[in-house]
Structures are given as structure tokens and as C-alpha cells.
């Protein structure tokens, strides 16, 4: 492989990382909202949220992507395929992250909130100062896990024509007739990215560890 081609692969890996990172962040924001709706006592909020979570976790991502990619023009939305791809990835990860967050919020010991109640923190202050920070710390490992899953799942957006790592490997493999080489390099790059994410995650966890009871 010439340095020029390897450079192309690296560029594509960058695209994979960028698209995944954007999707994870948007997914976290949507996940927060869905989680809030899911635990709401109002039926017409919690039921749609539960359906959302169940649907996006129950349908293969590839089918979701094909659906969103082909559905948007039906609403008169002619967006670049990368936008449709990010929308698909974000919605999918939002469903998983909503469940992770729900687990995190439910694992905050009740006594910690009673203690906050006793010193007069309002429900909103309890959420902002005690509940949310602890829940986020509890969900950090799941968030890292989800980031790795999305990095891998982002390979599927090659199907709707977004040029990222997998699509680049596909293109180069086809034009050079060297699929073994390019798919191996792509696999290696995914591995390196995931190791870096996992390493960063455990570093963050170690930094938070000293305060973990």
C-alpha cells in the first residue's frame, strides 16, 4: 500500500470518528429527553418513550438507516446522505443511552436524596447537584461501551453512500483488487480507535474512582 492510499484510509478513519462522536453526543441529548419522558408519571409521555426505545433497539440498524434515508425525501427533506446517516445513528444510540441513563438514575441510593432533602435541597437542586452527577458517573462505563458499539455500527452507513472507513476500504479494495489488505487495514484501524476510546474511558473511570464509595 502506498503512503498516499494509507493517508486516504486515515482520513476515512477520521470521518468515522467524527460521525460517531457527533452521533453519540446528539444521542446522549435525545437519550436524556427520552429517559425523562420514560420515567414520567404522565402516560402520554412515558408510553411513546417506551415505544421509541423498544423500536430503535428492536430493529436492525441497517433497516433503520434504509428507512430514514428513503423516508426523508418523502417529507421533502433532501439532505446529504451523511446527515441521514447521523440521524439514524443518533436515534439508535439514543434508545440505548436512554435505558442506560434510566438504570443510572435508578441506582442512585435513595438515602442520598433523603439526606439532600433533610438539608433543604429542592427537588430541582437534588437533581442538579446530587442525582444527575452520580447517575452520570454510574453510566460512564455504559457510555464508553455505547461509543465503541456506535463506532463499529457506523460501518453500516457505507450502505447509504457515506464515505467513511468501511466505504473507503471497499472502494480501494475494488480498484486495486486487494481486498485482504484493505479490509485488514480497516479492521486494524477500527481496533486502534476502539482501544483508544476504551483506554480513555478507563482513565476517566480511574480519575473518578477515588471518590467512588
Amino acid at each position, binding site marked *: 500500500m502506498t503512503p498516499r492510499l494509507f493517508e486516504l484510509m486515515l482520513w476515512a478513519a477520521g470521518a468515522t470518528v467524527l460521525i460517531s462522536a457527533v452521533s453519540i453526543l446528539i444521542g446522549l441529548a435525545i437519550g436524556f429527553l427520552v429517559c425523562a419522558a420514560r420515567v414520567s408519571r404522565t402516560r402520554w409521555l412515558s408510553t411513546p418513550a417506551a415505544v421509541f426505545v423498544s423500536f430503535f433497539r428492536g430493529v436492525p440498524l441497517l433497516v433503520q438507516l434504509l428507512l430514514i434515508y428513503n423516508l426523508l425525501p418523502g417529507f421533502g427533506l433532501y439532505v446529504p446522505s451523511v446527515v441521514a446517516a447521523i440521524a439514524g445513528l443518533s436515534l439508535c444510540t439514543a434508545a440505548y443511552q436512554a435505558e442506560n441513563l434510566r438504570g443510572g438514575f435508578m441506582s442512585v*441510593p435513595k*438515602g*442520598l436524596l*433523603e*439526606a*439532600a*432533602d*433533610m*438539608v*433543604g*435541597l429542592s427537588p430541582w*437542586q437534588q437533581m442538579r*447537584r*446530587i442525582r444527575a*452527577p*452520580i447517575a452520570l*458517573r454510574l453510566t460512564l462505563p455504559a457510555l464508553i461501551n455505547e461509543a465503541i458499539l456506535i463506532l463499529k455500527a457506523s460501518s453500516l452507513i457505507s450502505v447509504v453512500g457515506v464515505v467513511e472507513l468501511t466505504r473507503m476500504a471497499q472502494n480501494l479494495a475494488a480498484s486495486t483488487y486487494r481486498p485482504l489488505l484493505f479490509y485488514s487495514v480497516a479492521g486494524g484501524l477500527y481496533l486502534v480507535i476502539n482501544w483508544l476510546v476504551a483506554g480513555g474511558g478507563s482513565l476517566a473511570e480511574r480519575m473518578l474512582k*477515588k*471518590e*467512588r*464509595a
Partner: protein
Amino acid sequence: MTEVSTPTGPAIVVKGVSKRFGDLEVLHGIDLRIDRGTTTCLIGPSGSGKSTLLRCIAFLEEATAGTILVDGAPLGFTEGPDGARTRLPAPSIRAVRAKIGMVFQQFNLWPHMTALGNVCEALRTVRRLPRKEAEERGMAQLRKVGLENRAGHYPSQLSGGQQQRVAIARALALEPEILLFDEPTSSLDPELTGEVLNVMRALAEDGMSMVVVTHEIGFAATVGRHIAFLDHGRVLLDGPPEEVFGAPRHPRLEQFLETYLDRGAATLV
């Protein structure tokens, strides 16, 4: 710690308080008077309702009937002459609860904040004190429980006894008039209970009004000025320790002391 408002009246009056969880009634019409500046110990077998009573006084549980007066002011509900209960507006509930501090069995320190952070949290977010002033006050409270050199430690870096002392400092920071303790030494290793009991003893000598749910009969007998023995959701015995523990002992108390505590503790008092 100084006595305010009505220095002569009782700190807390519990009148006919009942509490039911579904079909289970755990408190049956409790009457109790807690005098200002003294320590009242609630003892009794597990399931006797002593912790539930304490949690009702803290308003962590809402009593299903009866009233609780804190410093003469009704807590949570008022009861009309016809027995109908009206819920008081939230600001009034907050104002009455602000007089009460609570120390839990499981410490319940917030794990993401340092010892000082735990003590200062309410001073900053509820009282809105500037950081510097809050920290000065927080340090003063930590000094009182002998932990000023642990201010920067996180709860997980502290022993159980130290955590509970931080929790006491946290409760003291808002200068409550009454401190409630829910089995404060029950989740501690035996060798760590002493340091917590010593802090509580010092508070009692300072004239703090305290209500302590405890299994430490020795502590109850020596520090408590008033003992209430609960059994099956009722106050069975109520009076000064000499009277409650002195002969002739009530057969249920005798049985409790023998069944729930080792014989050594029973003969100690």
C-alpha cells in the same frame, strides 16, 4: 445550639401519630414529648416502628393520622377539631423542617463530594452563602467532630466512623434545633462506634436536643435523659432511664434486652 424562640416549651410533641403502609399499620397512635436540650432515646426490637417514628418526625414519611409539633408549629399537616387533616403549604413545611437535622444509619454522604463539600453543600445551594463563608463554617463543623484534617477526602477514603462524623457535621452545618439519629452506629464495626458515640455525647453535653434511635443500650442509659421503649408500634414505656431500666422491669423490655442484645449488655444496665 443556643435555645431560640420558645425556650420553655417542648422541642417536639407527637400527638396520636399513626402510620400505615398499605394494609400494615406500623405505628398506632403514638404520643411522645421531647424536651428541649435533652437526649431522647427510642429503643425497641426490629419492626417495633422506632425508625418509622423518627422518619415521620423528619417528614421523610408522612404520618397517616395525628400531628407533630416542632417548636409549637405543626409539621406537614394540621388537624381540625373534627379530625380532618389539611396539608400545609410547601414553604411552611420547609420552614418547620429547617429546624430539624438528620443523621442516617448508612451515613448517606454524597460520594462525588469531599467531606467539606458534603458539609458545605446546603450552605451554598440552600442558604446561598458565598463559597468562602460556607467553607469557613463547614471547617468549623468538621473541627467540632475532629475531622478538619480530612476536609479534602472523599467519603470512600474515610472509615465508617469518620464518614458518620462527617454526616453529623453536615447535619450541624445548618444549625438545626433538633438532631435526629437513625441507628447511627448500626452499620459500623464495633471498634468504630466509640468515636461516633463520643461526638454525640459531646453534643448532648452542649445542650443539643436530640432524638436517637439506637441499639446501644449503654449509651441510652448514660446519655439519654428520656427513654421510650417501642413495641409493635406502640410506646410501651416512657420515662427517665432509671425508671425504665430499673427494677421491676417490664417483661417485654426484659425479653428485648435478652433476645436482641447479648447478656453482657443487659446486665450492664
